[in-house]
């Protein structure tokens, strides 16, 4: 009897359209200036957010650091960038820039034959996974109620990210921070598997015969992959930062930026790992807890989440950790064991547990989108006054400082949230069924039933939180 997963991919049969076939698009992607300009502006905005958080008004809804980071940026990230462009944000993220510039001794391209600045150590083998990122995200989530509302705390977090990223560039080679530490990059990587875009090689055989491997080692045209990935071996977006360096360094014009079917990576058999599976649980569980704390009517829960260091907060932390690392994975494990019982397979329970966890990726993304829709539509109107008065100092730069808070589309919100969750549930169901079919078992569809029930239960939970 067979079951998921086996080493066969349907990936090659799926349609792709290579954007680099368009000369203008390729020229814009290869040229460093467009990317540099966006990143430089993003870095200015990032530094301004830190300054605003530290020196601006402590009122979150009137401070650039809260409104532009947690409302404007977050909306762009989770509603647009991740679903449509996968690692698109990482392409222009300013956080690793100072460290990378120091490391490279240059802002634009390679600076001749000078060796990289810094210790250049390799990242420890035992930590070459996303467990640290999982922990970092969970840690941030525990303080989220304060981080998302208090400008000073946001500023400290942003400054800490910048310092850690720069420091890690001085100690380790390449972008160790992005690849192994960044709490945001971790979940972008997970959900970028659903994106309809990818960086891949056109022909792996070309890479196999190319001895220099300049995409990894670097050349005078560009740096070796900052993420430490070999493009010829890429099978999913998770560990590709879409930095475009390989597009610049490949002398054989073998790199493609493909438009592809959404979620293509979820059917990818290679590279399924327990740390990624737990990332899916952490994200799903965090979305649930955030929704309960920020959108729910439970005052005591809010008080506990805000009361950093208090006994109620410690209980909140305990409940969060048990829910995210215990209850959710535990229930899912039961579901995956039930799957195995319905259609017996030679694969270990752990392997099945990990494989099916990828069905939670589209559901988790849908949950985050549905959650974000509520507070983005509700709070987006804060952007206008803060644009004119980003520090809350009484400025009126663009004449919009007096714009009143106006929630948008509140009547449509439950419909949109339901729609998004239903799409996420359907997508999760399709993914679960595909994973079940990987083993070519005649009754594979039965295997997906417990997983689908789990996803249905989670969806109902979210619907209850969102629309009651």
């Amino acid at each position, binding site marked *: 009897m067979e079951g998921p997963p086996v080493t066969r991919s349907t990936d090659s049969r799926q349609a792709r359209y290579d954007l680099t076939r368009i000369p203008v698009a390729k020229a814009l992607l290869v040229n460093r200036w467009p990317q540099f300009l966006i990143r430089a502006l993003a870095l200015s905005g990032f530094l301004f957010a830190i300054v605003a958080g530290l020196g601006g*008004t402590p009122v979150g809804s009137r401070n650039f650091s809260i409104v532009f980071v947690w409302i404007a940026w977050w909306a762009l990230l989770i509603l647009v960038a991740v679903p449509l462009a996968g690692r698109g944000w990482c392409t222009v993220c300013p956080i690793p820039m100072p460290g990378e510039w120091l490391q490279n001794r240059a802002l634009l391209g390679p600076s001749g034959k000078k060796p990289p600045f810094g210790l250049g150590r390799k990242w420890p083998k035992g930590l070459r996974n996303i467990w640290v990122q999982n922990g970092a995200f969970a840690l941030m989530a525990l303080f989220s109620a304060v981080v998302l509302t208090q400008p000073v705390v946001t500023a400290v977090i942003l400054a800490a990210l910048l310092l850690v990223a720069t420091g890690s560039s001085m100690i380790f080679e390449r972008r160790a921070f992005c690849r192994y530490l960044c709490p945001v990059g971790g979940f972008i990587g997970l959900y970028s598997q659903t994106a309809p875009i990818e960086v891949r090689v056109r022909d792996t055989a070309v890479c196999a015969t190319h001895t220099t491997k300049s995409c990894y080692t670097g050349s005078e045209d560009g740096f070796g992959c900052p993420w430490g990935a070999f493009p010829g071996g890429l099978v999913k977006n998770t560990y590709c930062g879409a930095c475009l360096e390989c597009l610049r360094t490949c002398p054989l014009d073998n790199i493609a930026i493909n438009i592809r079917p959404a979620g293509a990576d979820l059917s990818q058999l290679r590279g399924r790992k327990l740390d990624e599976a737990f990332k899916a649980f952490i994200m799903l569980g965090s979305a649930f807890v955030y929704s309960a704390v920020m959108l729910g009517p439970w005052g005591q829960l809010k008080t506990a989440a805000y009361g950093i260091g208090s006994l109620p907060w410690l209980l909140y932390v305990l409940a969060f950790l048990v829910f995210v690392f215990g209850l959710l994975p535990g229930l899912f494990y039961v579901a995956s064991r039930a799957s195995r019982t319905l259609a017996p397979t030679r694969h270990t329970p752990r392997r099945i547990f990990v494989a099916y966890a990828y069905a939670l990726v589209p559901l988790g993304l849908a949950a985050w989108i549905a959650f974000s829709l509520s507070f983005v539509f509700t709070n987006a109107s804060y952007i206008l006054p803060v644009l004119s008065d980003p520090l*809350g100092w*009484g400025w009126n730069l663009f004449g919009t400082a007096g714009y009143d808070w106006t929630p948008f589309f509140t009547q449509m919100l439950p419909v949109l949230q339901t729609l998004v969750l239903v799409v996420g549930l359907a997508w999760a169901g399709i993914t679960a069924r595909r994973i079940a079919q990987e083993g070519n078992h005649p009754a594979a569809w039965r295997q997906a039933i417990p997983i689908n029930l789990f996803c249905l239960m989670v969806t109902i939970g979210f619907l209850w939180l969102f629309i009651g």
Partner: protein
Amino acid sequence: MVIHRLRAEWAARLLLIFLVSGLFVAIMAGRNTAQAVEVHAVMPESGGWMPGNLSAEVNVPLDLRLTSDDVMHGFAVGQQPWPAVAVVPGQFTDLSLIFDEPGIYTYYCTRWCGLNHWRMRGTIEVTGKASDQSSTGSTRQPLYLTLDLDIDASHEVDVQLERPPSAAHGEKLDFTIPSRILTREHYLEQTPFEFWMALRADPGTADLSDTELWDLVAFAWHSQATPDSLLLGQRLYDQNCAACHGDKGNGEGVMARPNLAQSDPDSFGRALLPPGDFTDAQKMLGASSALLQGKIVRGGMGTGMPYWGTIFTADEIQALVDYIWTFMFPLTAGE
């Protein structure tokens, strides 16, 4: 090729320096350099007014920039005729105050911002010479101090009323209260029970029942308050007292226990007594106007009641006392 790259690199560096330094120059240039004192309002549990102490000089404008860091607050200075201003989260309200007398003034929150709203007080110490040398200032000693009343002592009397006294009934009774037993001083210093006893001792009341006599007391107390005083007292009561004492004066306001009990033992280290019940005959009939005035001025009494002596003027406090008596002595029974 190399030269081209070097130029591009330097161009990138210059652009970055321009962007980042331009940003900071813009921020520094836009900093508010006005001399106004920025006062932040936050709920008392998180700190109250920040700063909580201000200083000013007589006849020198004290410019304030008020903002709230959490919820809607209000700002007013006690015993001053200036209207309260709203303190809105994320917005600045500019205010200029001019004091013509030295002293310590209290500013306070005028919006119900939270459970401990009434603890949101700050002080302004005004120094210098009074512009009007003839001014007596606010040095008049409260009556309860002049009379040396112990406002914490029990003032219960053993009285059982058949029904709440009615001023309207008292007015209709064919009896003229002798002026020797009811003067303004009597109203302020005597308890209703003492006045009732004085009436009982009068031979002219021999035909009146005890209940009718209480109606007479109610009428006597009503006759001491003017309509304007009652209106003012009612406005102040509704704004500041009703939340705890209740709009019917029965001590069952929305902010009374158990709401207070949930938060205060932790905040203040003691369990609180419930707010006073102004319809409780045993307590009210043994209290004088001066005693009620003292309680309002000083606060406390183990109930968590704030002091109002620096907030209200003497006339306002008297108006409050006049209004509070109407709970015990309504115009008509059952009103």
